[in-house]
C-alpha cells in the first residue's frame, strides 16, 4: 500500500514537472522550444544588472519560464560596464553563450573577431524586430547581433532649480548659473560625445583635433561639475542634490516616477541613440540554445514584460503592440521622428582614437595644477635615503653595543 502511495506521489510530481502549472507565456511555436528537453543543457547568459524581468513586482520571471519551457538550465550572471565584458572575454577565463553588450562594444568585438555569426533560421521571431534596426552601423551586415533594447541620451533636470529659458540645448551643461549643480557621466564615451555634439562635430570623433577641442570644453566645464557619476545619479537627482544631469532616457523615466519635479529633454543639437543587442561570443558551447533564448526574448509577451520591467525602449514591434499606451506613447522613451532623425549611433573608434579618448579622459580627471612634477622623484629619493640611513645607523650601533657588553642583546637606551 505504501509503495502505491509513493508511486502516486512520484507520478504527480513528474506530471507537475512536465506540465508546469504557471507557465503562462504564450509562444509562437511551442514545438520549437522542446528540442533540447531532457538533455541537461546549460546556457551561460551574461547581461546588465537589473536588465530582465525577474518575477518581482508581479513581472514575468523570464529565465524561469524559459527553463520550464525548454528544460535548459540557465546560468544567469550580470555585469555593470561594457568594458568589464570585454576584459572578461579577452582574459579568456569565462565561458559565455550569450551576451547583451552595447553597440560600440559589439562593433569592437566584431572587428576583433570575437563574435559568432548568428543562424537566423533558429531565430524565427527576428521578424518582430522593427525595420529601422536592421543592419545598424555597429553591425553593418546584421549577421552578429539582435537588438534587445534601445534608448536616447538626454538631460534630466529639476524643474524647481532650472529656469525654463535655459533648456533646449547641451549649453545647459555649460551654464555658469548652475555651478556645482551639474552631474556628468563617469564614462568617457558619453561625456566626449556630448562635448563634440555641442561643438557641432559628430559624436564619434573623426580625429584627435576634434577630441582635443572637446577635452578643452570639458576642462572648462569641470569647474561647474559637482561630480562624475553613473548609477549614483538616481540618488542625487531624486534627492534634489543636483539640478542637471545627462543620462539615459529609460532611467530618466524611473527617476521621474520617484520625483515628480524632474523632467527630461533631448537637446536640439541631437544626441546619441544607443542599442543593447544580443550576441554570441566565439567559442560558445551551446550556440543553438543561445539562439533559442534570443528567440524566446523576442516573443511578444516576454519582450513586453521585459520592457515594462526595465523601462528602456523596445525594438520589438510585436511587444510594442501589446504594451499599454502609457508606455508606448511616452515621448521620453519613444521620441518623435524629428528627434530620432537627429540621433547618432556609437561607432567603433580606431585603436589610436580609443587610446586618445582614454588619455584625454585621464587628463581631464587629473588636471590639478597644485602638484609639481618633481615631487614624486624627490619623495622616492628621500624615502630611499632615509631607509638606507636608518639601516646604517642601526647596524653601527648594534656593533658598538655588542663590543661593549659582549652579548647579542642590545642594551636599552632610555
Amino acid at each position, binding site marked *: 500500500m505504501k509503495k502505491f502511495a509513493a508511486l502516486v506521489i512520484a507520478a504527480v510530481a513528474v506530471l507537475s514537472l512536465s506540465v508546469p502549472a504557471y507557465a503562462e507565456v504564450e509562444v509562437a511555436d511551442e514545438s520549437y522550444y522542446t528540442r533540447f528537453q531532457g538533455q541537461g543543457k546549460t546556457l551561460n547568459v551574461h547581461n546588465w544588472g537589473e536588465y530582465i524581468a525577474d518575477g518581482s513586482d508581479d513581472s514575468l520571471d523570464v529565465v524561469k519560464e524559459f527553463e520550464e519551457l525548454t528544460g535548459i538550465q540557465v546560468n544567469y550572471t550580470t555585469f555593470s*560596464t561594457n*568594458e*568589464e565584458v*570585454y*576584459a572578461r572575454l*579577452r582574459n579568456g577565463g569565462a565561458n559565455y553563450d550569450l551576451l547583451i553588450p552595447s553597440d560600440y562594444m559589439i562593433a569592437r568585438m566584431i572587428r576583433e573577431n570575437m563574435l559568432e555569426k548568428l543562424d537566423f533560421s533558429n531565430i524565427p521571431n527576428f521578424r518582430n524586430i522593427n525595420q529601422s534596426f536592421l543592419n545598424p552601423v555597429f553591425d553593418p551586415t546584421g549577421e552578429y547581433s539582435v537588438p534587445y533594447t534601445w534608448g536616447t541620451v538626454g538631460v534630466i533636470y529639476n524643474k524647481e532649480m532650472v529656469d525654463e529659458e535655459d533648456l533646449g540645448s547641451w549649453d545647459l551643461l555649460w551654464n555658469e548659473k548652475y555651478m*556645482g549643480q551639474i552631474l556628468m557621466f*563617469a*564614462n*568617457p*564615451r558619453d561625456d566626449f560625445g556630448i562635448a563634440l555634439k555641442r561643438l557641432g562635430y559628430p559624436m564619434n570623433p573623426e580625429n584627435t583635433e576634434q577630441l582635443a577641442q572637446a577635452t578643452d570644453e570639458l576642462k572648462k566645464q*569641470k569647474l561647474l*561639475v*559637482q*561630480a*562624475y*557619476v553613473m548609477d*549614483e545619479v538616481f*540618488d*542625487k537627482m531624486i*534627492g*534634489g*542634490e543636483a539640478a542637471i544631469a545627462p543620462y539615459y532616457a529609460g532611467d530618466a523615466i524611473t527617476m521621474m516616477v520617484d520625483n515628480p519635479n524632474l523632467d527630461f529633454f533631448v537637446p536640439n543639437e541631437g544626441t546619441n541613440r544607443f542599442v543593447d543587442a544580443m550576441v554570441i561570443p566565439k567559442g560558445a558551447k551551446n550556440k543553438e540554445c543561445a539562439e533559442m533564448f534570443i528567440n524566446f526574448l523576442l516573443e511578444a509577451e516576454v519582450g513586453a514584460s521585459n520592457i515594462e520591467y526595465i523601462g528602456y525602449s523596445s525594438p520589438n514591434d510585436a511587444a510594442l503592440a501589446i504594451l499599454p499606451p502609457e508606455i508606448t506613447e511616452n515621448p521620453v522613451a519613444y521620441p518623435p521622428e524629428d528627434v530620432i532623425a537627429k540621433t547618432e549611433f556609437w561607432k567603433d573608434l580606431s585603436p589610436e582614437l*580609443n*587610446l586618445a*579618448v*582614454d588619455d584625454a*579622459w*585621464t587628463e581631464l*580627471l*587629473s588636471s*590639478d595644477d597644485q*602638484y609639481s*612634477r618633481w*615631487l*614624486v622623484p624627490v*619623495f*622616492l629619493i628621500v*624615502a*630611499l635615503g*632615509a*631607509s638606507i640611513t*636608518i*639601516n646604517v645607523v*642601526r647596524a653601527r650601533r648594534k656593533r658598538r653595543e655588542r663590543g661593549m657588553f659582549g652579548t647579542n*642583546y*642590545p642594551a*636599552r*637606551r*632610555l
Partner: protein
Amino acid sequence: MNSKSISAPYLLWMIVFILAPLLLVAYFAVTTPEGTLTMEYVSQVGEYTPVLTRSVWLAFVSTVICFLIAYPLAFIISRKSGAGQRSMIMLIMLPMWMNFLLRTYAWMTILEKNGLINRFLAHFGIGPLNMINTSGAVVLGMVYNYLPFMILPLYSIMVKIPDSLIEAAQDLGCNTRQVVTRVLFPLSVPGISSGVIMVFVPSVSTFIISRMLGGGGNLLIGDLIDLQFLGNAYNPHLGSAIALVLMVLILLCMSVTNQFGDEEKGGIL
C-alpha cells in the same frame, strides 16, 4: 622536518596566489602585448605623477589623523578593566560587521548638500556647507574605514605595558611628557609601525572611496589602475606598470616603518 610538511600547503598557496600574480604584474609591466621587452609603460607612469602624489598625500594625511585619534584611545582602552576593554574593542569592531561599501555610501547621505549635517545646520541658519566631493571627504572616508586597523595593533601592544613601568618612570622623576616620549612611545613602536602600514597601504590604493565621496572628478592611483583594466582602452600593460610603481612605493614605506619597529624589538618586555 615535520613542520616543513605542515607548512607545504601554505607555501603552495603563497606561491600560487601571492608570488605568481606579483610576477605576472611585473611581467605585464615590462612587456608589450606582443610579448617583447619594453620600458615604455613604466616610463609612461611618469605622466601620472600628480595622481600619484595626490594619492600618497591623501593616504599620508589620513594615516596621521588615524594615528592621532587612535594613539590616545588605544592607551585609554588598555588602562580599563577587563570588561571595559572588551566592550570598547567590541564597539570599535562593530561598524566592520557592516559592508564597507554601505558604510561609505552612508557618508554620502551625511555629507551631501541636502544631507543630514547640512539639514541640521540649516535649523540654525548656517550653511549649506560644501562637504562632499572634496579631498576632505575622501580623507574622512579613509579615516573612518581604516581607523580600527590603527587602534587594534596599538591596543594589543599597549595592553602588554604594565602600569608598574609607568609608575616606576614617575618615581624616577619623569613628568607626564617624559613618560609618554621616553617610556610609552618607544615601547609601542612595533604597534605604531604595523598600524601605519595597515592604514597607509589600503588608503593609498583605494578607489571606491574617492569615487563615492570625492565625486569622481579627481582620480586617485587606484582609479587610474581600475581605468586601465576596465576602462575604454583596455591596457593591462600600463595598468600593471602603475601597479608596479605603487607596489615599489609601498614596499619602500614599509621598509622604513619596519626599521623603526625593529629597532626597539629587543627592548619589549
